[in-house]
């Protein structure tokens, strides 16, 4: 399969990428690792006229401890999250989840910011940033905006990033002492989660239980009220309307959300570090 024709331009800086976005009209797409975008282009689900390559912008590839947060450049690759000693120490949930994205080849190319902006509710990292209470930094013609992870994901493959904007940084709180867990249910190696659950620091986020990654707010409230993992997990699927597909109907997904949430919260309660 071959993508429809496009013009390829390589951005030399984040500002240059923004200029290219502004001058390319409506039919430009940013290309980072390309591990979601190129399959979409090959299937001709999208036919942008211009691809703006930001994958070589070293200014967007970094992991820096800054006070109570770790600042991560949006073009940081999954494999670099996995290998980061700073993240393993301060935000261990994140490298653990990154190691479950795709496979080694995909992790060598795919980027943290790319996965978030793609906005697939079945992806792992969007739920991880929700569970972590991350802040997403977006640059655009009007300057910088900071968006809470809760408000970032809007619908299937839709995020708060405008067409003339660029996600530049993800800021995650340092939680070196918090228990954490990620439960990913798949039928086969290499698959997207049928359902997944990320839990850390009293927050619980669900993968593939709706049109965006979701916080399990009823479960979080129960936990805050002192409920046990089993009690809190009972409300994990409250208010969700998950997709039905060949892998699972809604009832099975809701069942999985409860079971996986209980497992995750049990791990957190046992103080996994």
């Amino acid at each position, binding site marked *: *399969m*071959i*993508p*429809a*024709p*496009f*013009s*390829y331009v390589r951005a030399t800086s984040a500002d240059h990428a923004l200029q290219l976005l502004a001058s390319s009209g409506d039919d430009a797409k940013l290309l980072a690792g*390309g*591990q979601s975008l*190129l*399959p979409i*282009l*090959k299937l001709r689900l999208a036919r942008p006229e211009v*691809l703006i*390559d930001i*994958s070589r912008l070293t200014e967007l590839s970094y992991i820096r401890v800054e006070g109570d947060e770790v600042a991560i450049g949006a073009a940081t690759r999954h*494999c670099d999250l996995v290998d980061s000693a700073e993240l393993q120490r301060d935000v261990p949930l994140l490298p653990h989840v990154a190691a479950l994205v*795709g*496979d*080694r*080849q*995909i992790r*060598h*190319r795919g980027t943290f910011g790319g996965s978030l902006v793609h906005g697939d509710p079945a992806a792992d990292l969007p739920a991880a940033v929700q569970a972590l209470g991350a802040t997403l930094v977006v640059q655009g013609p009007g300057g910088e905006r900071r968006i809470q992870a809760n408000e970032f994901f809007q619908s299937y493959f839709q995020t708060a990033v405008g067409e003339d904007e660029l996600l530049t940084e993800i800021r995650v709180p340092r939680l070196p002492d918090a228990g954490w867990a990620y439960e990913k249910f798949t039928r086969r*190696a*290499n698959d997207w989660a049928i359902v997944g659950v990320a839990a850390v620091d009293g927050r619980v986020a669900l993968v593939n239980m709706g049109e965006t990654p979701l916080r399990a707010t009823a479960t979080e409230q129960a936990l805050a009220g002192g409920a046990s993992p089993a009690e809190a997990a009972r409300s994990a699927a409250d208010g969700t309307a998950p997709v039905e597909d060949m892998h699972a109907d809604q009832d099975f997904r809701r069942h999985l959300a409860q079971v996986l949430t209980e497992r995750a919260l049990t791990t957190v309660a046992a103080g996994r570090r």
Partner: protein
Amino acid sequence: MQVTTTVNGAQRSDEVEDRLLLVHYLREVCDLRATNVGCDTTSCGACTVLLDGESVKSCTVLAVQADGREVSTVEGLAGADGTMHPVQAAFRQEHGLQCGFCTPGMVMASVSLLKDNPSPTEQQVREGLEGNFCRCTGYHNIVKAVLAAAGSGAKA
């Protein structure tokens, strides 16, 4: 766009269409046909090559993204005198293939895996090759081959 790459140690420069995929560049422009197109959807790993020493699925990389970079395919592994790379020798010794279609990608993925983890456990080999499908062998002899290449064949 004009792309300059180093493919299996030899630098070259080619004018390519912006939308050309790396795997088609290797097969049709460079005439290196060992790298196979399998699923064409980033799943099967048959098209795995090394880009700057790291395994990638060349059906999901543009040739223009390889500009200025080094690409290694299975054709570049053996020595000038034909001596096989240790991973190739181990795949032959342990019969880590049947039809051979997945083998170029499987070998390149294994080379990358062993570079990052020279002494993997069996579990680490199985997880490390999760992006490469084999529909013949059931993976048993492939895993044995990678462990043998790592010098840890006794664990298989």
